[in-house]
């Protein structure tokens, strides 16, 4: 009968030694884990132990199931095979240990017998093959293909760390097979064919004869055990640490809406200057980073030649938190202000991170410190000063905010005086920017002709503060939000609607934190969708355009709204051709996070907006890029000029399409301002 002959050919002292070594490995491992945990507990407090069930489920889906890792096909399969190969072999080892050291030792019963054992051997053999295939793919990718995102790491210590992991896993796999093969070569059990790989190796070794094979088996067994224990002990000291940190990090991930930023730990002195000022969870982020570089690949700032790589931020902070002294300052020497200011807050990085790191929160906390120190770009400083003084970044009088309404008849209601159903939060760009006037007027006209009960706040509106907050100027955000909230509280309305996804995000996710939930917030694409579906807005002409659509970061990735604008376009008779990067993979226009208020540094090769309009222009038969965000419109209209696509690609706001499909014209000629 097939039975697992544990410690076949192994003398008793080696068996004992193995247990002692195992114990030692566990001790070294434990010390390393404690050392790690103690380090990240030096961070600031942060509560992350609610919703245990969703957290556990996350771990199941993302760590065990590798869901995000698989988004990227080649590295996804590569990692899945390695991971599951190792897990299966590890489970096999555990089963064998239980079989021998628990059930056999105490009850004299072995369960790895007969068909169970045969199946066990077969499965392990197959997973061993998976492991080696995965490792082969990894070696090929890392050392032959050499994608950018695996190259140019900050510091050089990682070359060996990366190689070490691969070497150890390859050695464990190969020595494992050899030990099995040699055992089969000598013992030649009847059930050998159930271990196809081991059997094949065994057959190859039969020629060498018994004594030498027996010795070889013995020697390789020792090597195999040694490598396995070294690998185990080294987990908390090497890249293997992500095996633990990754799932733990996924467990403790933020369950807040993506659009709700955490407030700074200290209100008086917001921001992070030293590594200990980060929360323990942020420190855990840095530790969990596996340097896979997916975030760098999708980062619009990185693609444009900015010095920022979210991957490097994680790596550098991890390195720094372990060697903080060195006479280096974290801000300035390790992380430069340029890197931090390059971020567009698009969230592509944290949306793709397989271990659910929040690169953006680290960047923001460091930005907060820069703001506190007054270390800001002169143009950004102007914008912030204007926002503080006038409530808009343009430095125009708040009394001019509703100047665009001058030609509108009947006069738009003032929500501060008249009760309405919809409060239209117009936003800075739609109110003040010359390129937006037509769109804003058209929106008013569409609302009015559809009989929507709406009003605006006139000079009572302030910038919503979304981007102010993401610049790191928390105090100014609070001030702007307070002013708007006071105005809201004095007005009667049911729903806020805005064309600006940035305002939409903060109004929806951040204004309501303090329990101001008596209204809901809609993006205009959502409202237009509802109005068309309900028949309130009638489409009189099917446009028949072939268009593409850019998902605004703050509508899509931040708030998951991908369908409403698409439904509107389809209702207007537009054929939508998707860009390669669409929906959650949308590519930021470069305006977010306050970048629209900052100067691009000279090293910028191709601005994100240029990159994006080229993507749109490359679609066959498409000459219209539809946007649903005032900043997108401004950015892309400019990019069309600088990328030399004038006359080839037209940037239209969703409201332009509505205007055409409902055959509405702005009665007054464009106002001279």
């Amino acid at each position, binding site marked *: 009968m097939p039975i697992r002959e544990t410690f076949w050919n192994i003398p008793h002292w080696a068996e004992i030694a193995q247990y002692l070594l195992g114990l030692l490995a566990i001790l070294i491992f434990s010390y390393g884990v404690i050392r790690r945990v103690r380090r990240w507990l030096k961070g600031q407090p942060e509560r992350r132990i609610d919703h245990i069930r969703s957290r556990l489920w996350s771990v199941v889906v993302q760590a065990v199931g590798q869901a995000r890792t698989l988004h990227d096909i080649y590295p996804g399969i590569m990692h899945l095979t390695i991971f599951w190969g190792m897990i299966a072999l590890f489970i096999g080892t555990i089963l064998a240990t239980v079989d021998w050291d628990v059930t056999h030792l105490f009850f004299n019963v072995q369960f790895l017998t007969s068909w169970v054992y045969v199946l066990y051997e077969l499965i392990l053999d197959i997973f061993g093959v998976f492991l080696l295939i995965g490792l082969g793919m990894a070696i090929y990718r890392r050392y032959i293909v050499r994608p950018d995102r695996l190259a140019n790491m900050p510091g050089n210590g990682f070359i060996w760390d990366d190689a070490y992991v691969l070497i150890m896993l390859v050695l464990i796999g190969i020595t494992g097979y050899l030990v099995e093969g040699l055992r089969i070569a000598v013992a030649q059990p009847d059930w050998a064919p159930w271990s196809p790989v081991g059997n094949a190796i065994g057959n190859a070794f039969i020629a060498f004869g018994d004594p030498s094979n027996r010795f070889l088996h013995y020697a390789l067994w020792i090597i195999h055990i040694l490598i396995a224990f070294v690998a185990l002990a080294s987990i908390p000291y090497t890249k293997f640490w992500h095996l633990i940190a990754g799932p733990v990090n996924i467990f403790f991930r933020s369950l807040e809406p993506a659009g709700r930023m955490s407030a700074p730990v200290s*209100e*008086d*002195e*917001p921001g992070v200057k030293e590594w200990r000022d980060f929360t323990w969870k942020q420190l855990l982020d840095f530790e969990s980073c596996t340097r896979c570089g997916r975030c760098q690949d999708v980062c619009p700032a990185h693609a444009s030649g900015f010095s920022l790589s979210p991957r490097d931020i994680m790596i550098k902070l991890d390195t720094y938190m372990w060697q903080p002294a060195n006479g280096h300052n974290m801000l300035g020497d390790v992380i430069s202000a340029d890197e931090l200011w390059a971020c567009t807050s698009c969230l592509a990085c944290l949306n793709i991170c397989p271990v659910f790191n929040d690169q953006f929160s680290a960047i923001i906390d460091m930005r907060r410190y820069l*703001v*506190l120190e*007054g270390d*800001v770009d*002169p143009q950004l*400083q102007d914008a*912030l*000063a204007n926002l*503080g*003084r*006038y409530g808009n970044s343009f*430095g*125009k*009088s708040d*009394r001019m905010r509703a100047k665009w309404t001058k030609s509108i008849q009947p006069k738009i209601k003032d929500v501060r005086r008249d009760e309405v159903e919809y409060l239209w939060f117009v936003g800075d760009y739609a109110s003040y920017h010359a390129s937006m006037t037509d769109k804003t007027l058209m929106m008013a006209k569409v609302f009015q002709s559809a009989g929507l009960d709406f009003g605006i706040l006139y000079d009572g509106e302030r910038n919503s503060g979304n981007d102010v907050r993401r610049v790191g*100027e*928390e*105090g*100014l955000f*609070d*001030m702007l939000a307070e002013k708007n909230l006071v105005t809201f509280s004095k007005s009667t309305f049911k729903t806020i609607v805005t064309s600006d996804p940035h305002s939409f995000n903060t109004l929806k996710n951040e204004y309501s934190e303090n329990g101001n939930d008596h209204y809901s917030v809609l993006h205009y694409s959502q409202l237009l969708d509802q109005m068309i579906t309900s028949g309130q807005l009638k489409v009189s002409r099917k446009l028949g355009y072939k268009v593409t659509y850019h998902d605004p970061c703050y509508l899509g990735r931040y708030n998951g709204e991908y369908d409403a604008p698409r439904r509107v376009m389809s209702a207007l008779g537009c054929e939508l051709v998707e860009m390669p990067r669409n929906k959650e993979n949308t590519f930021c226009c470069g305006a977010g996070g306050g970048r629209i208020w900052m100067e691009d540094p000279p090293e910028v090769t191709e601005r994100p907006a240029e990159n994006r309009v080229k993507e749109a222009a490359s679609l066959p038969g498409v000459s219209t890029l539809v946007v649903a965000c005032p900043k997108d419109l401004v950015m892309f209209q400019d990019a069309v000029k600088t990328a030399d696509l004038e006359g080839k690609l037209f940037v239209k706001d969703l409201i332009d399409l509505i205007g055409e499909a409902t055959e509405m014209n702005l009665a007054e000629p464009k106002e001279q301002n």
Partner: protein
Amino acid sequence: MNIVVLAKLIPDLVEELEIDDSGTALDMTWLRLIINELDDHAIEEAILLKERTGANVTVLAPDIEGVDDILFTAAAKGAERLIKIVGDYESGVNNHALARVLTPVMKDLQPDLILVGVEAHEDLDGSIGPLLAGYLDLPFIGYVASIELEDGKATATKEYPGGLSVEMEVTLPVVLGIQVAEEPPRYVAVSKVRQAMKTAEIEELEAGDFDLAGGPTIDRMYQPEVSEGATIIDGSLDDIADSLIGIFKELGVQ
């Protein structure tokens, strides 16, 4: 080393200015007051000097609506002492009156250096820096763009038109009119200002009666007629561009 900076709130030109019913003054109801930009530079210069030499910085301002904000902002930048001059500003004050009020205040404070923006766009009776210097019998240098302090003397760089500057040495104490600080005024995070509001204290000094002698009386104030001089070219963008090109040709520059 004691540095006193004098700051003033003046009408913000971003807003449309209106004349009141009397026809001789601005309509205050529509005004937004902001710190005189050059005074902001003077504060920055004082803070830079403090950072270089460890001087003490006092910021002093007339008590007009919004003064607390500018004083707390100055404190957030590093000013140690904040003083506002309380008085009846509603009935109108000019630089002569203010300078007279400040003269005894300055004598009490005994500064080594008085910094003030070299001018303000509302000055009709001269600028306050040299008026104050005159009353205090101190030397004055205006249009200053940088300051070095050494052994009871200051070396100030004064700007002349055409990019020419001159280095002048002067014995302290002195009043300097700042044209531009060596670095642009720094950004102060709102949280820092809020913290200053909790910790810093604003001292109040009484102005007493204002003596306006020395300044003129305004009989009429008005906005210059729109486009008084210019021939306005209008039409579509195309038409305007064509007209402009025509004018360029006529004038022989194209």
